[in-house]
């Protein structure tokens, strides 16, 4: 074999091996996506906390937002661009950016929707966090360890729901009438709703659910006999941006 042939053949076979490798890599990635997406389907026995909001019963109730923000020491910052929100209200267009299913619109367009962290089955924010400050708990809650947050804001870029806020300034001067039971945050930290994970072990429902009375139902989505499963069964409900495959745990019953 002449030297040129030898080189040609070895480089070609090298390319072939590299090609096979990349195909294998893609197949592996596909498997990973399929696997993570499958966590959306309920598995019996395990807990996955979820929230159902009855949008018909839900009238504008500032008490719900106030209850959450006061209890969690969420600062009230007047500057709109630097606002910090764990739970907030917006219209259908903002809530479901793809718009409502056609012909469903009408009265729905004028309804107001409560928006909060969706505690996704497949959370993009958890994937991008470089310090694992945000992580998914086994009960489905996407939680934050504020001690670890370095304020890189990758999670804010990744979250398609705008559920995360950044503390551009020291929030201390903007804190509500101080609530000593829950810590505040500091400058340079991202914060968001945690489904009141500090209240659940005590057997209490989240503050928003408590304030909303019957307009919000909190419970275990994996338990077919839970109140939330009964409420969702056989009724038309929407989740925000299902096309992204994040698998939200917050349902809007129409």
């Amino acid at each position, binding site marked *: 074999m002449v030297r040129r042939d030898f080189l040609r053949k070895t480089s070609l076979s090298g390319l072939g091996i590299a090609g096979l490798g990349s195909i294998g890599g893609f197949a592996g990635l596909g498997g990973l996506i399929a696997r993570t997406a499958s966590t959306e389907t309920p598995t019996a026995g395990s807990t996955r906390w979820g929230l159902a909001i009855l949008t018909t019963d839900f009238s504008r109730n500032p008490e719900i937002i106030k209850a959450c923000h006061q209890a969690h020491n969420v600062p009230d910052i007047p500057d709109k661009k630097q606002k910090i929100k764990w739970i907030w209200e917006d219209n259908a267009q903002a809530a479901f950016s793809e718009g409502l299913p056609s012909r469903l619109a009408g009265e729905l367009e004028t309804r107001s929707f409560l928006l909060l962290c969706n505690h996704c089955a497949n959370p993009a924010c958890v994937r991008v966090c470089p310090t694992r400050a945000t992580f998914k708990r086994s009960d489905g809650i996407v939680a934050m*360890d504020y001690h670890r947050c370095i304020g890189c804001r990758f999670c804010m870029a990744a979250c398609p729901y705008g559920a995360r806020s950044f503390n551009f300034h020291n929030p201390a001067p903007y804190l509500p009438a101080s609530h000593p*039971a829950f*810590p505040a945050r*500091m400058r340079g930290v991202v914060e968001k709703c945690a489904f009141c994970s500090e209240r659940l*072990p005590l057997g209490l429902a989240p503050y928003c659910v408590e304030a909303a009375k019957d307009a919000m139902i909190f419970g275990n989505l994996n338990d077919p006999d839970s109140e939330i499963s009964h409420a969702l069964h056989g009724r038309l409900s929407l989740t925000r941006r299902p096309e992204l495959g994040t698998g939200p745990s917050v349902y809007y019953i129409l």
Partner: protein
Amino acid sequence: MYNVKAILTGLLVFMAIFTSPFWLNQLGVDYKRPALAMPVGEKECLAPTDYMRGEHMRLLNEWRDLALRQGERLYTDARGRTWEINLQNTCQGCHNDRAAFCDACHVSNSVSPYCWNCHLEAKGKS
């Protein structure tokens, strides 16, 4: 040997300066453990005082990970008593005077923990 005088005085001066912290320390006062304001009405913390004095920071780190990562909010101590894992409410529930308890020791040991960047101070006496 050349310049013996200069070399020897230089060496002496160097040794005097180099060992000065040691000598100066002999003149200074001894470190005194600051007097801490202990909680009124409570006799024992969840572990012996010596352990708490030396290792409370480690315990707090463990508590942080238990509460936030594992979602476990209850802690049973060696004597079988149960405590809610909560710096702001459980610890500060008894140790409610930050300046006279926490800071007194932290300041004299030149440590500045970042607990109170977020955790609110107890609303006890201040």
